């Protein structure tokens, strides 16, 4: 069947922070750009970021991009690529100033400069003491940033395709990417969108876990599409648990609470982080704090009737600071935890928050795979930015505030790089004859299955499986059993039944399509985790408790075909400065 087709210079899939930062560069450069989004752009998950954007402005304490770089390398447990990390930290002040010029309502200091707060793992002078580096708009930084970027795109007349879901990547015989197939949700029509540059900015996939701070839309669509098109996924075993999700609800409480002076307490009322991280204490990096909390709970010092959470105390900050700097946190605590943090502590547990891995790219956002030019051979026409990409600046553990920074820096870099290609002067590559086949086959399979289970049942089982087999602490038995269960779930998902066959805004069909992407993400994550026999950053294995730089200082690459694993070296060589060689990691 021939699908209706539309042509653009560039197609961006996803209208969160990364997608809209890239689209802005492209629209302002005069290219024809289509930005597809499953939701209206300001509903993308960037909107939920709270604490700040990391940049060494030095407005409130002495700072330098080199210190930021060191903290990021150390935070990554040396798995981050130092060229990409240097680029990001050097660019940070510029992208923050640009946002300010776009109109972003940052909080301000008495001298009129941007307000900055301390954040976990960020330090002065290579780990000496905490630094104020997180540029904040109260505790709504993501919301302010996403709306500002959307508004700036309105000004640039960017063309948005709202409530369109990309289905599959189109690659030709040479392996070049020629666009995507996509579903217009309102009508149920499927289109081919041809592009000279296809940019994935599809965000994270936290919905493979049962307890997650992520939105419903974070289903790893870009990862699923890339994997089905033969692109490997990098470092998917590394999933960040944010220390402070509201117990039972999963809703995020920003690290900015601890940045402003909040502390974690166990059932004895002890500030236990003093024992685990004597220097940075509650502001150690997230993997360290999450593991410490889990340890406290495991050793019986959890709070509440089931001793299954710890307390985040902030009443000592006083109502003025809470109302001024953390107003949404107060609102969330009242609504989701039944406590007013002005008076009482908030019950919190480590909760899945961020995917460090993703589609492998270089610092221009170009997707790179092992091939004729070595382990980082460029896939023509294909780019990935933001959480769905692995560039890799976060390595085995991301520092708070580096996510928004990653979106801005690499969204902008990819936009500039593509604009320099002068795509408007080039013609489209010929579309392969089978361009729409993969997407149509998936749709036909989902519509045609007569006996099987519902999407809701399978997705719920998948989330429970990943939650219990791929959590904070992992071991061989748990992981091997988990791999087996996920592969069974893949079989079940293949037979998923759709009872509602209607076309107009069929959200059940959308969820069935998302399930395919959740399955690919889950397989990549747990198979990569099982194979990595060491503990590094967010991957903590009780059977291999130490970091093993001799055997495992390398990036994992998972291929969908045959669930094959490959590895590639970490880039320990920065662009211009001396490398930071691996050393023991203490806070």
């Amino acid at each position, binding site marked *: 069947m021939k699908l209706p087709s539309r042509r653009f210079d560039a197609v961006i899939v996803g209208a969160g922070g990364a997608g809209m930062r890239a689209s802005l560069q492209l629209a302002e450069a005069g290219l024809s750009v289509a930005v597809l989004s499953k939701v209206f752009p300001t509903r993308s998950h960037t909107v939920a970021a709270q604490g700040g954007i990391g940049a060494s402005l030095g407005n409130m304490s002495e700072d330098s991009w080199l210190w930021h770089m060191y903290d990021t390398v150390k935070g990554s447990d040396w798995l981050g690529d130092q060229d990409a990390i240097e680029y990001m930290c050097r660019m940070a002040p510029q992208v923050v100033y640009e946002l300010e010029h776009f109109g972003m309502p940052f909080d301000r200091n008495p001298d009129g400069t941007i307000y900055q707060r301390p954040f976990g793992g960020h330090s002065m002078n290579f780990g000496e003491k905490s630094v104020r580096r997180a540029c904040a708009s109260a505790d709504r930084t993501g919301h302010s940033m996403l709306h500002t970027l959307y508004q700036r795109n309105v000004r640039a007349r960017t063309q948005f395709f709202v409530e369109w879901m990309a289905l599959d990547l189109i690659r030709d015989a040479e392996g070049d990417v020629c666009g995507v197939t996509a579903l217009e949700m309102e009508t149920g029509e499927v289109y081919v969108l041809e592009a000279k540059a296809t940019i994935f900015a599809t965000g994270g996939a936290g919905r493979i876990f049962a307890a997650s701070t992520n939105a419903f839309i974070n289903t790893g669509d870009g990862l699923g599409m890339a994997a089905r098109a033969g692109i490997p996924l990098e470092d998917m075993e590394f999933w960040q648990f944010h220390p402070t999700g509201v117990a039972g609800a999963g809703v995020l409480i920003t690290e900015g609470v601890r940045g402003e002076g909040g502390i974690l307490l166990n059932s004895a009322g002890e500030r236990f982080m003093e024992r685990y991280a004597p220097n940075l204490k509650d502001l150690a990096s997230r993997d360290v704090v999450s593991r410490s909390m889990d340890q406290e709970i495991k050793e019986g010092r959890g709070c509440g009737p089931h001793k299954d959470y710890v307390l985040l105390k902030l009443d000592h900050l006083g109502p003025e600071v809470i109302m001024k700097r953390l107003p949404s946190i107060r609102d969330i605590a009242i609504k989701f935890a039944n406590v007013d943090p002005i008076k009482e502590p908030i019950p919190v547990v480590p909760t899945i928050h961020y995917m460090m891995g993703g589609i492998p790219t270089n610092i221009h956002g170009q997707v790179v795979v092992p091939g004729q030019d070595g382990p980082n051979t460029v896939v023509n026409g294909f780019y990935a930015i933001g959480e769905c990409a692995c560039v890799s600046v976060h390595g085995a553990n991301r520092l708070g505030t580096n996510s928004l920074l990653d979106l801005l820096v690499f969204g902008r870099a990819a936009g500039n790089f593509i604009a320099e290609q002068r795509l408007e002067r080039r013609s489209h590559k010929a579309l392969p004859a089978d361009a729409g086949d993969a997407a149509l086959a998936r749709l036909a399979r989902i519509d045609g299955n007569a006996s099987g289970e519902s999407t809701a049942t399978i997705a719920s089982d998948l989330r429970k499986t990943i939650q219990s087999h791929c959590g904070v602490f992992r071991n061989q038995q748990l992981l091997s059993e988990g791999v087996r269960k996920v592969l069974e779930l893949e079989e079940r998902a293949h037979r998923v039944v759709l009872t509602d066959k*209607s076309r107009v805004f069929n959200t059940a069909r959308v969820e069935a399509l998302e399930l395919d992407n959740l399955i690919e993400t889950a397989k990549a994550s747990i198979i990569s985790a099982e194979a990595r026999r060491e503990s590094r950053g967010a991957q903590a294995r009780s059977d291999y408790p130490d970091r093993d730089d001799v055997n495992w200082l390398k990036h994992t690459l998972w291929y969908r075909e045959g669930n094959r694993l490959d590895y590639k070296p970490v880039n320990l060589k920065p662009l211009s400065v001396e490398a930071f060689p691996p050393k023991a990691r203490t806070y």
Partner: protein
Amino acid sequence: MKFRIYRYDPEKDAKPRLQEYDVALDPHDRMLLDALVRIKSIDESLSFRRSCREGVCGSDAMNINGKNGLACTTNLKQLKEPVELRPLPGLPVIRDLIVDMSQFFKQYHSVKPYLVNDTPPPEKERLQSPEERDELDGLYECILCACCSTSCPSFWWNPDKFVGPAGLLWAYRFMADSRDRDLNERLDNLEDPYRLFRCHTIMNCVDVCPKSLNPTQAIEKIKDLLVKRTV
């Protein structure tokens, strides 16, 4: 728990209907959105928008027992049964609880919702005092959920001519920004019997805003600026 939910599938239904659901909830189901997700796991044809589930993305605005609100921040305990759910009033229904929001966004776009300042920016940030920044509080937090505009009778009658409370709140957000240089044009753009002056201070917008913002006050401030300009 008992629900009566507005259903309309243009491919099947000649006209909308209310469907009754009686569902056993889980003790962890706290918010209305949790109940809707549970209902959808039983009847997957029920259609609604949702995303962040914490009141910041603005996807799941609907009419809940006669009042607009977000499903994800509406506690089930505060709802009288049967809980009647309808799409946001005044906008065309696409399907079930999903409305066509084009008109709402068109009005938002019409106020030039972006900072205008053509002077070359400094190398670092444009300075703004904390007091100047405070002027933006209560304005920039809008999540574009449309609870306000679709509860406003003036917007129901003239959705193509009256900007509506959300758009006007954003219009004032940029007028109030010390960095913006477009005040006159912004006022010209609204000095019109319909665009601004259809607001009759009924204040439904204030009553329903899930972020506790006050569009009526922003509208009054725009009117003040217009008066000041003529003096």
